[in-house]
C-alpha cells in the first residue's frame, strides 16, 4: 500500500506521519487511485473575479500604518520541472506577525497583535514567472503538537500553475533556523535535499540598502512533460 503522493520520490510528505499528530485522524489510509493524465486534465482557473490590486503584494502597508518588525523582500520565480517559467499565475501568502501571532480568532498565543498587520498578500507572476512580496519577518510560535513545540518561522504559500496538477500549498522557511530539527511538519519531508528546497536563500541583490533584507525563493510545480529525475512510479 502506498500513501505517498508520487511526484519526485522523497519530495512530498507522506499523508500519514504520526509525529504530526493532526495526521492521525485526517490522513486517508486507502491507496490513492491513479488516473491516466487525460482523465485528470483541467486548466488553471481564470482569476477574473480576484480583482488583484497593485499593493496587494505589500503586507507591511495593508491598513495605512506600517507593520511592526524586520522588513523583508521575498522574491523568486514560479517554474515547472522543465524550468519553464509560469506567467500570470496567482500566488498568495499568509503568515504570523513579528511576534508569532496570526490574525485569526483561534490563535490564542498570548503574543501581541499588530493592528497594522493582517499577514495576507497576493500577486500574479509576471511574464518571466517572477513574483515579489514585501513583508516582515514572521516570528516563531508555539503549538500543542508535543511538549514545548514551536514552529520555525515560516510564510505560507498557495500557488496555482497552468493546470490542476500544478496546485501547491507549501511553507517557506528562513535559513539556519534552529527549530528545523524539532519540527515534525518540516521533518515530514522524507528527503533532506527536498527540505532544503523550502528554505529561502539570503540574497544581497534583493536586499534594498537602508530599507529591507532580501530573500529568494523559487517554486517548482510538478510538470507533466518534465524530465524525470528519479523513478517515481
Amino acid at each position, binding site marked *: 500500500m502506498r500513501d505517498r503522493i508520487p511526484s519526485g520520490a522523497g519530495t512530498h510528505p507522506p499523508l500519514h506521519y504520526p509525529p504530526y499528530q493532526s495526521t492521525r485522524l485526517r490522513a486517508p489510509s486507502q491507496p490513492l487511485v*491513479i488516473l491516466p493524465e487525460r482523465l485528470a486534465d483541467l*486548466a488553471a482557473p481564470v482569476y477574473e473575479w480576484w480583482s488583484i490590486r497593485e499593493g496587494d503584494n505589500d503586507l507591511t502597508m495593508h491598513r495605512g500604518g506600517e507593520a511592526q518588525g524586520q522588513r523583508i523582500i521575498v522574491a523568486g520565480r514560479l517554474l515547472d520541472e522543465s524550468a519553464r517559467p509560469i506567467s500570470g499565475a496567482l500566488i498568495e501568502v499568509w503568515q504570523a506577525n513579528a511576534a508569532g501571532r496570526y490574525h485569526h480568532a483561534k490563535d490564542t498565543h498570548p503574543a501581541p497583535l499588530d493592528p497594522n498587520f493582517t499577514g495576507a498578500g497576493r500577486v500574479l507572476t509576471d511574464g518571466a514567472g517572477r513574483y515579489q512580496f514585501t513583508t516582515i519577518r514572521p516570528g516563531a510560535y508555539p503549538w500543542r503538537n508535543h511538549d514545548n513545540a514551536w514552529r520555525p518561522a515560516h510564510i505560507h504559500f498557495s500557488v496555482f500553475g497552468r493546470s490542476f496538477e500544478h496546485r501547491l500549498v507549501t511553507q517557506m522557511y528562513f535559513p539556519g533556523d534552529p527549530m528545523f530539527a524539532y519540527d515534525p511538519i518540516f521533518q515530514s519531508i522524507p528527503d533532506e535535499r527536498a527540505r532544503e528546497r523550502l528554505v529561502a536563500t539570503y540574497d544581497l541583490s534583493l536586499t534594498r540598502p537602508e530599507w529591507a533584507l532580501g530573500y529568494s525563493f523559487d517554486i517548482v510545480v510538478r510538470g507533466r512533460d518534465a524530465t524525470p529525475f528519479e523513478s517515481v512510479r
Partner: protein
Amino acid sequence: MNNQPRHPTPSQTVGPFFRVCLAANAEHGQLLPGTPPRITLAIRIIDGGGAPVDDALVEIWQIEGERGLSAFGRLGTNEDGWCEFETTRPPIPAAGASHINVCIFARGLLHHVWTRVYFADDDRLSSDPVLALVPEARRPTLIAKSDGTTPARWMFEVHLQGACETVFFDA
C-alpha cells in the same frame, strides 16, 4: 539563468490559520453566476473519528462550457464541517458522466487530497471511465445525493479516513 530541470517544491500543510488569505471572500462560493442549471453543492468534511473538520479549505474545479476553461470556487468549512457552493451542473464530458473535482486542504493534511463528485441521477455513471477504475464497493463514496428540492441541492460527505473513507485520486 540556466534551464536545467528542477526538482519540485515539497508540499506542506495549509495549517489552521489560512482564512484571512484563502477563505476571506464568501463570493468565492459562487461559480458561473447566471449559468443554468443552478445547483447547490453542499460539501461536508469528516475525520476518521467521525468528527466534522471545521478548519478545512475546500476547492471545487469544474469544466466551464465551451471555452475549455475551469470554473473555480473555494470556501472554508464551518463548525459542523460544511461549506456550500452555488454553481451550475457541469456539461457532460466526451466520455463518462458529469462531475466536479473537489480539492481538500486542512491542518493534518501534509499534501492536499482530491476527489470527484458525481450526481446520483446521472445515467452515464455506469459508463464513466474514472468510476470504472474504482473498486465497486467504494464507488458510492463519490456520488452526491439530492434532497429532491428545486433548484437542486446536492450533498456530498467526504470521509478523510475510516470504514467509509472517500476515494481520493492522483494523476
